[in-house]
């Protein structure tokens, strides 16, 4: 298993280490529910150094990115972050990524850890004709995510920039934190306000220790992958491999907002246009269990005794105290209020389609 620079710290803090797509990372420290609630009420710090970073630069960098993503970054300002799916020609998803725009000829792309190699190769394969240089710089960066309502106060103690001036998806490319250069963005994967910090791997431990120390009086705790998943799940943020995959298009996943069919050609456009015009036959929905039971990834969703879809993510929601799920279902059963059943250990348990997200995001918008 690959280790992040913080591996020893996780062990010292009692982190329960698991194999996450080949990375040795803590699933929890004190407990998933406790960490989850701390992030909602105070703050949590996550080691997300496994995330991939890919640099795209050159005179055609912007055009190249426009071609490989479904979102439109033509009006994205410098030092802003954009989110986008990246599709195959058939509309299935290669990955969902963050695009950090430095200028029209320099971008940093943040990709899912387990997709880093695949994404890099996909980009290389599609760069012909574009004057651009693509490099996988994942090993140079450690990444920490500080998430929760207390994040700004905690981080402000350690940086040389005014965080109150930053809105959601702003970033500062050369901030100073504890005297070291870092990229800081107001972003995250929990539905809370928060920041993500990219720093040279050699300073990761120093930064982690300083953040924990600065956050102590604000209730900051280290949080693991378990809480990261329950938090993003409540906020209905898609997880690649579950709500998005080569078999699920962004339109089916309800990411219409990030699919700009009116912009110039991009990979997957024809397939997505066609899907939109012929009607989207299945959709990602939210549901709440009516009967007692915990829905889990892969369980069948039924109506009238017949399979109409399957659960993509499901869990007990620590913030809402309910058993909730997301599922990919036949569009005929996607309307809020529709009664369906989830097959749990061969029993059909009642569930009801609900609005997403389950938990409304607390982003600091401009």
């Amino acid at each position, binding site marked *: 298993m690959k280790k992040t620079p913080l591996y020893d710290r996780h062990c010292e803090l009692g982190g*329960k280490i698991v194999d996450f797509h080949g990375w040795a990372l803590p*699933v*929890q420290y004190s*407990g*998933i*529910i*406790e960490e989850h609630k701390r992030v909602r009420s105070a703050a949590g710090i996550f080691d997300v150094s496994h995330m991939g970073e890919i640099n795209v630069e050159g005179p055609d960098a912007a055009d190249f990115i426009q071609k490989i993503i479904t979102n439109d970054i033509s009006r994205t300002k410098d030092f802003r972050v954009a989110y986008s799916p990246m599709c195959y020609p058939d509309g299935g998803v290669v990955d969902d990524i963050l695009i950090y725009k430095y200028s029209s000829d320099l971008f940093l792309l943040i990709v899912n850890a387990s997709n880093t190699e695949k994404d890099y190769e996909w980009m290389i394969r599609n760069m012909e004709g574009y004057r651009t240089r693509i490099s996988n710089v994942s090993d140079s960066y450690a990444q920490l995510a500080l998430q929760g309502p207390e994040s700004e106060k905690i981080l402000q103690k350690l940086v040389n920039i005014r965080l109150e001036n930053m809105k959601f998806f702003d970033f500062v490319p050369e901030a100073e934190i504890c005297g070291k250069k870092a990229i800081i963005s107001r972003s995250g994967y929990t539905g809370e306000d928060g920041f993500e910090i990219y720093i040279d791997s050699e300073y990761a431990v120093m930064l982690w220790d300083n953040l924990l120390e600065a956050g102590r009086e604000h209730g900051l705790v280290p949080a693991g992958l*378990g809480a990261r998943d*329950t938090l993003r799940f409540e906020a209905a943020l898609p997880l690649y491999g579950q709500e998005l995959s080569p078999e699920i298009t962004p339109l089916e996943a309800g990411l219409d907002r990030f699919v700009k069919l009116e912009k110039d050609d991009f990979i997957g456009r024809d397939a997505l246009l066609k899907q939109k015009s012929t009607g989207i036959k299945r959709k990602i929905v939210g549901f709440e269990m009516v009967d*007692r*039971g*915990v829905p*889990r990834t892969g369980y069948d969703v039924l109506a009238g005794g017949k399979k109409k879809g399957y659960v993509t993510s499901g*869990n*007990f929601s*620590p913030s809402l105290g309910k*058993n909730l799920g997301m599922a990919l279902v036949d569009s005929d059963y996607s309307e809020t209020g529709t009664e369906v059943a989830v097959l749990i*250990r061969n029993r059909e348990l009642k569930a009801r389609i609900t609005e997403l997200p389950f938990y409304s995001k607390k982003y600091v918008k401009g």
Partner: protein
Amino acid sequence: MKVLEGLKYSKDHEWVKIEGNKAWIGITDFAQHSLGDIVFVELPEIGSELNKGDVLGVVESVKAASDVYTPVSGKVVEVNEELGDSPEKINEDPYESWIAVIEIGDISETEELMDADDYERFCKEEE
């Protein structure tokens, strides 16, 4: 990790408290600790006849669902309904949080179970 004297233990980390021909069955401190926060317990039906090794119930944590096996054969005569509303009791006090009571069919099966010392050693090897 807590192991109580006077109980019997299975290799699947269930504890058994035997009184007369009745067996109270739950999961051990080791088991609750490795599962993490427990959010749901599925109880067996009263009256069901189970063979040793059959699924007695299911304990679900935030992370995953795990089957609980009965270490003895017999008939389910009581279930702990309290766990339906408060599954987290298993984390808080695993040895008070019995899942079901079984009327033991074959008392000789209990001889194959471990005592506290053996179980403690068994857990050390598993770690």
